[in-house]
């Protein structure tokens, strides 16, 4: 009755309709968890898990061991960067400290009404018994014998020899150095002589002179070397012997000679 071709077409249409009907039923009940699902899950997922774990293991191996070569390189690079940064930090710190010192010198320069020349300490005396330093300014820069040298704290010493580019400065703590000075508060006069690295002797202070510990000693300007009013040091010790005309006084210089780096030479 029906030809074979017609029967095949009808079959296809029937299957399509059945398929649509089943999809419609399934769409009405989404996420249904059947026993088939469980069986499939129980059978497949362990393999999935195994494969995934193996993949993670391999990935982990790569990242933690083989990739360490790259990490090492990165580490070396970062260490280099860190060292560079530390060097730079040190340089900045040094610059800042130099800036502070120079600022103090500049303040000093503006306080003292004389023409001054900044210089750097480049060498020290070869023996511990004599106290001299070398500065990097000489006759070519206008420096000559007898010129006063000061730092931010106060008087450093005087020039005792100069070549074209360098000069030798006798510090006030040297035994052969002497400055005509006076106590700022009471105007008592005396001579400050070098004694040890930490202190000077303030000689010829009469017994009746009113002086106290921590009184400031300044240059009197009468020696013709140091301008009047430059700070020398503070009185650190006073003793009045039972006999004699004078008191025995010690002065602690304001300048720290162990850390002397920059100085000013008074050119006039």
């Amino acid at each position, binding site marked *: 009755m029906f030809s074979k071709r017609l029967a095949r077409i009808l079959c296809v249409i029937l299957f399509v309709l059945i398929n649509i009907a089943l999809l419609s039923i399934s769409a009405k009940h989404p996420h249904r968890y059947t026993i088939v699902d469980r069986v499939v899950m129980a059978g497949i997922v362990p393999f999935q898990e195994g494969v995934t774990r193996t993949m993670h293991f391999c990935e982990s191996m790569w990242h933690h061991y083989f990739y360490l070569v790259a990490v090492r390189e990165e580490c070396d690079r970062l260490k280099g960067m860190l060292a560079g940064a530390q060097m730079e930090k040190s340089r900045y710190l040094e610059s800042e400290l130099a800036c502070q010192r120079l600022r103090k010198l500049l303040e000093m320069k503006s306080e003292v009404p004389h023409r001054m020349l900044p210089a750097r300490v480049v060498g020290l005396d070869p023996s511990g*018994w004599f106290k001299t330093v070398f500065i990097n300014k000489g006759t070519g820069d206008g420096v000559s014998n007898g010129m006063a040298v000061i730092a931010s704290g106060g008087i450093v010493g005087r020039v005792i020899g100069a070549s074209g580019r360098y000069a030798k400065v006798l510090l006030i703590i040297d035994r052969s150095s002497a400055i005509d000075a006076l106590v700022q508060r009471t105007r008592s006069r005396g001579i400050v002589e070098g004694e*040890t690295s930490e202190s000077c002797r303030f000689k010829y202070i009469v017994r009746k002179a009113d002086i106290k510990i921590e009184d400031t000693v300044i240059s009197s300007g009468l020696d013709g070397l140091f301008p009047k009013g430059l700070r020398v040091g503070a009185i650190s010790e006073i003793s009045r012997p039972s006999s004699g005309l004078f008191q025995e006084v010690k002065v602690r210089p304001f300048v720290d000679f162990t850390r002397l780096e920059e100085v000013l030479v008074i050119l006039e």
Partner: protein
Amino acid sequence: MVGLSAVVAQTTILRIPLFHAVFYDLLIPLVVFLSLNLPDKKGVLVVLILGLIMDLLSGGIFGLYLSIYFWIFLWVKSVSKYFDVCDTIFQSVLIGVCVFGQHIIFCISVAAPYQLLAAQTGSVLLQTVFAALTGPGILMLLGRLQTRFETHSSGTEREIGNYVIR
């Protein structure tokens, strides 16, 4: 060259507070070495030049280093006639005595008061002991330098000689 290097080191690195108390005048072992190994005229000339340089750099009385080095040179020369100069203990004592003697002369030259003496005593003793301990080593080092220099010089002369012959 060795002397000049020692002079520069002494006026820069070795004067910082860290080394100041321990390091002695490094030219003393050099003067002792020159006295023991160089002919009189040549040795005296080098010693006087070194003394002159040190005097120019120092704030002390001019001629102090010159005199000290000169007398050390002569003293070591005369003492070496009676003792075995290769003996380490002898060298050690010799350099220790020289360093101590130099400090005594400095002390007299500055007419050091009690306070300065008290401040310097520890440093002087430490330097003397350090000089006695390290002095023989410096002498040995200088001896090796001299040997190497002489070998190099004689080798160069031989090469020059061969060149001329050819």
